[in-house]
């Protein structure tokens, strides 16, 4: 469980995070969605002890992130946005060092490495130097490494950024499997479809504040079911409708080109903040 109360982060006079509060239930997949620079990575960095908080409190499975930091750190695994593997070591060595950092015994490390490399389908590459792996393989290895010490919480910071659609879907499958094993997952992303597909609940973050928090279905229901994208005064505009009939009536009276489609999380974010997630 992750509990965050009034989290603040200030860099000089810039408020990167401003009174952020939320709670992630055990076993839940919680997506943190927002444009670049909204405060997603800052939140993860604070929760994982990489950055000091300026105010507020946060607990990971009941352990305060500052006052009880070493025990709080034992609760989670972390997959960073940037590849942070030791490129000169093999997959096996990267996993083993991680296990040592968490004080795991040699026999247990061996068992977990075999299990996890099998899980992410990299066992056949265990003795390969990391720098020879593809981007997708490196990501899978980072997920496996984060799970090495059997954490109860997994932080994923933009885990599929820069990957092609096929590999992205493969990672999604892996994330779903991890959640089904009972792990609480905190995921930051700016891919709408990623949050839509994976998340139980979504928090929209914008300019360091949580703009809204709900399930993807509730967000979309609130916005409408259908959307029409059209050009108005030289600008793209989206109009939302409760049902198809309402949308069809609008189309009948509209002159010019348009696109009729289902409402998605991007529309919910747009109607709440007036801006797109991908900016």
């Amino acid at each position, binding site marked *: 469980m992750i509990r965050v109360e009034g989290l603040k982060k200030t860099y000089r006079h810039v408020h990167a995070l401003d009174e952020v509060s939320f709670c992630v239930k055990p076993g839940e997949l919680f997506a943190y969605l927002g444009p670049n620079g909204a405060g997603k990575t800052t939140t993860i960095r604070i929760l994982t002890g990489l950055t000091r908080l300026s105010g507020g409190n946060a607990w990971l499975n009941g352990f305060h992130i500052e006052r009880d930091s070493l025990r709080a750190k034992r609760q989670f695994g972390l997959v960073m946005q940037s590849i942070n593997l030791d490129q000169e070591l093999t997959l096996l060595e990267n996993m083993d060092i*991680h296990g040592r950092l968490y004080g795991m015994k040699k026999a247990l490390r061996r068992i977990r490495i075999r299990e996890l490399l099998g899980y992410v389908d990299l066992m056949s590459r265990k003795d390969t130097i990391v720098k020879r792996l593809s981007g997708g393989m490196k990501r899978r290895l980072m997920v496996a490494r984060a799970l090495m010490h059997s954490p109860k919480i997994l932080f994923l910071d933009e885990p599929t950024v820069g990957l092609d659609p096929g590999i992205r879907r493969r990672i999604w499958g892996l994330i779903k499997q991890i959640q089904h094993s009972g792990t609480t997952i905190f995921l930051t992303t700016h891919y709408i479809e990623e949050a839509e597909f994976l998340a139980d609940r979504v928090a929209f973050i914008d300019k360091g504040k949580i703009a809204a928090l709900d399930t993807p279905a509730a967000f979309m229901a609130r916005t409408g079911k259908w959307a029409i994208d059209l050009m108005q005064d030289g600008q793209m505009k989206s109009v939302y409708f409760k049902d198809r009939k309402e949308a069809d009536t609008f189309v009948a009276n509209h002159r010019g080109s348009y696109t009729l489609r289902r409402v998605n999380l991007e529309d919910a974010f747009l109607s709440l903040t007036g801006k797109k997630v991908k900016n």
Partner: protein
Amino acid sequence: MLLLKRRIKRLILSMSVSPLLYLIAFGYAMGKSVRFGGHTYLEFLIPGLVAMSSMTQSFAIATDINVARFYWHIFEEFQAAPIGNVAYVAGEVLAGMSRALISVTVILTLGMLFGVRLHCLNPLFWLAVALNSFVFASLAVALAMLVKSHADQSLLTSFVITPMAFLGGTFFPVDRLPHWAGQIIWILPLTHASKAIRQAAFGNLPGLSPYLFVGLTGIIFFTMALKCVDQARD
């Protein structure tokens, strides 16, 4: 340690280049005509090279830390792990000290090839080497946390380490310098380390003060490194 094992051959090779050049250039060029305190210049030079190399090699971990921080982002893996700052700093310092000890072994071997016999089994010799490398490995960790880019790190090496390497009693006796210069150089930990290393290598008793000075400096730098690692969270 894994990386050290993997790189050991090229590391030893690269550690041999500079001392070999110094030995050839200074040793043969000066020949046996120059003597300091009853010792040939080669005998005088090798302990100086030991002091210099234990400093530069232990300080070189700053580059590894920089690469880990700015390019590979591995530092975050350590920051997020349930290990205290003491464990992290101690690990890096020991890595630096290991490099230093390997480089000293390389120099002593080269010295033997040049026919120089020193009291290198003297525990006080190795204690001085260990303390010297402790000082500069700790300083390396502290400075690596303060710099904002790899380029800054190169500047520090140029302005701090290189002058010290040449002036800290490595290539010539400090007492031959003008009084004011000697006063400044006496503040440098390398001056005390090279004095202790040279005395022990000649089979003399170096006295307690250089060990105390270097040891205390090491403790200060180690504490500084702990503080800087903590501050690196921002």
